[in-house]
Structures are given as C-alpha cells and as structure tokens.
C-alpha cells in the first residue's frame, strides 16, 4: 500500500504492507532508529513516538492508520543544526540517560507532557508508560523538572 507519512515535518512516500508496525516503518524504511523495540507488548515504551503531539506505542500502531498525521520521532527534537532541545540537554547533563535505550521514548513522553501538562495528573503518571531499568527514575524526574523550569523562565 502506498502511503504518505509526515515525519518530523518531512513528507515520506512509502510502499509497505498496511499492517506493518509504525515502529518498523520508521526504523527500517525511514532509517530513524531512535525508536526501539523493547517488548512488542506496549509495556516498555521504548517504541514511543508522537502522533499529533500525543505519545503512542508505535509497536502497536498499523502504519495504514497514520497517513497524513504529524508524526514526531526523537530525531525530530534537535534543531536542524543539531542543537539539543532543552529537555535533551537536561537529560544528558543530569544523568537522565544511562544506557540510553529508554531515552528516546522517555524524552518524547516527557516532551509531550511539558507541551500539554494537563494530559496527566503529574509527571510520574505521564512517564508511567516508559520503563527505565537503569536510573530508578530519580534523575529522569530531575531532568524533566529542570526543563520545565527552564521553560517557565
């Protein structure tokens, strides 16, 4: 099936099986390997991408359902010159990333929450769909809070 995908502001024409997972299309057809497969069950959040600013588990999304919707992957956060977003910089500086495998999904979920704070009761709830096994979440919370304060300044 021929589909037009809008990813990180750019148009991509792909010809793929309609039930192909968005995760696989992003990684294999578009070469954006930031989204990861951690479980294939929608439990770990390592595959998180944003559909119109809302986080989803891309391992559970059939690509035929997201044609023409604005999709954001981790590769879409830094500026085109490569400058890290505020949140990315805080993660790197504050120990929010250790092994880094959960990091792309975690940053996207956090970014979505920072843009729409009402989408969850609090930060912990906003990030509950992104498992981290390295950090105990402490420094992830610190990084997101630092970015949130940066945004208020």
């Amino acid at each position: 099936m021929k589909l037009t995908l809008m990813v990180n502001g750019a148009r991509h024409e792909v010809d793929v099986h309609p039930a192909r997972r968005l995760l696989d299309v992003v990684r294999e057809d578009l070469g954006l390997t930031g989204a990861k497969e951690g479980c294939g069950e929608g439990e770990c959040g390592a595959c998180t991408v944003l559909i119109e600013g809302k986080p989803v588990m891309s391992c559970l999304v059939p690509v035929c359902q997201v044609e023409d919707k604005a999709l954001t992957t981790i590769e879409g956060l830094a500026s085109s010159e490569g400058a890290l977003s505020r949140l990315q910089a805080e993660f790197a500086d504050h120990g929010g990333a250790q092994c880094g495998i959960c990091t792309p999904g975690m940053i996207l979920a956090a970014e979505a929450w920072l843009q729409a704070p009402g989408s969850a009761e609090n930060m912990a709830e906003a990030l509950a769909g992104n498992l981290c096994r390295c950090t105990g979440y402490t420094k992830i919370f610190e990084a997101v809070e630092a970015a949130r304060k940066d945004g208020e300044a």
Partner: protein
Amino acid sequence: MRSHLEDFDVACPKTLAEALELLAAKPGSMTPLAGATDLFVLLNAGQLAPTHFLSLAGIPELAMPASWDEDRYTMPALTTYTETRHDARVVAELPLLASAACELGALQIQNRGTWAGNIANSSPAADGVPPLLAYDAVVELASVRGRRWIALADYFTGYKQTLRAPDELITNVTAQVPAAGARHYWRKVGARKLQAISKVVAAGVLERDVTGVVTRVRLALGSVAPIPLRARHVELAVTGLPLGTATTDVALAALASDIAPIDDVRSTRDYRLRIARNLVRAFLAP
C-alpha cells in the same frame, strides 16, 4: 514480531456502510481493528490466526466525538480513553469512566485504546467493562441487516464469547448517569499503579432513599469470573436494606454465588476472593 504479514491484509473502508458490507461479504473472516492496542499485542506474539483486518480508523461515523443526550452519554466506537478522561461532564457525572480511563495502561495506551475495542476483546479483566456495567451501558451493534441494542450486562455469554454476530460491528456504547447523590465506587487492584492487568476490579453505583435504604445498586466485577459481570446476587441481597454490618454480611455471603476466581500467573484464587470481599465491604461501607 512473530507474525508473517503476508498472512494478513487490511481493508480500509471510508464509510460505515462500506465496512458493514465487507463484514457481510466475509463474515467471520474479518477482524475489526480500532486502536490495535489488544490485537497488535497478539499479532506481535504470533498468536493471531491469519485474518483480514478491517481498519475502522478512517470511518467518520465512528470517529465522531462522544455526545450527551440528557443523562445519557454515547461514545462512538473510536472514542479513546484519553477523550473520556478529559471530558469535564464525564468526570462530574460518570466518574467511574474517568477513573477507569486514567488507570488503564499508560498515556500511550489511553491515546489509542477504545472502549469498543475493550468490549470486543472481551477479556475477563477488561477494565473498561465494569464501569460501563455500573452505568447500565448499552452496546449498539450494526450490520447490513440494521442496528440493534444489547445491554452490556447481557453481552458476554462465556469466556471470550459475546452476542456479536460475525457480520456485526460495535458502533456505539451508551452509559446512563445515575441519580444525583448516588455513590460511585471504583477500585482496580493490580500489581502496580499503572500498566497493570487487574487482579480484581470493582465498579459500583449505589442509590438510597431518604431513610438510607438501598433503592438501586449496581456492582460490576472484573477478573473474578470468566466474564466481567454484574454481581447479581449481591445486588439482590442488599436492595431494600440500609447500609451497615448486617447488610455487608449479607452481601458477602451472596458474593460467593456471583464469582469464581482462579489461580493464574498473576494472582491466586484465595487472594482474589479476599480482595473482592474487601472491595464489596468498602463499596457498602455506611
């Protein structure tokens, strides 16, 4: 990803009529696909037999916003948990729907998962079903033969079995606001706060008259029987009684006739039984 995609295909109808025709043409061989948060877990695990997916995503009638008609709230098939939990009137008047939506999976699942899909998946642990049962939900089924409406309480007939005919599609689910002043009770017990399949889940609504006697009660339980269900024996037992220790005892005695929890990989029969009893106690606390 354990499935071979060549064994599957996806039809993407643009209208409800088109979808119903496809279902009628190949009844039983099409699998309606909404947010995919259940079906793609099975696909990923290689546990889905080859099928023709029927993607509902592009159907405008099913994607309309949920709406109110006096004290009835109708959710078209593609209504997501996210939409529901942020509806101020739902939070105020159908709080169990909001609570269930907030505790289902995590945000990523809530953004894609649908009430209709949860019903269609018909798991005994379906978190969306008990609150809908507590609100006397009605399921609308459509086919080329027309529309019909079934009480959600009658919808499940056995483990993973429902009254939906192979050529039918769930198109709407409607919930009824109870009387003002009713007690709304919700508790989901899982292994952790979010991203948890319930071990026991209870949704209840209770109305009393001026003397404090129970006039109307709905108690819906999940994960304690082959289907999510109304605890009819409990409801019958407490109707007409005031809340108090004696009534609670009567309810607990009746509970045994309503549920049949089991040991499984997540919990034990004994634990489920004990917690179900505790939830009933909490629901009926004076």
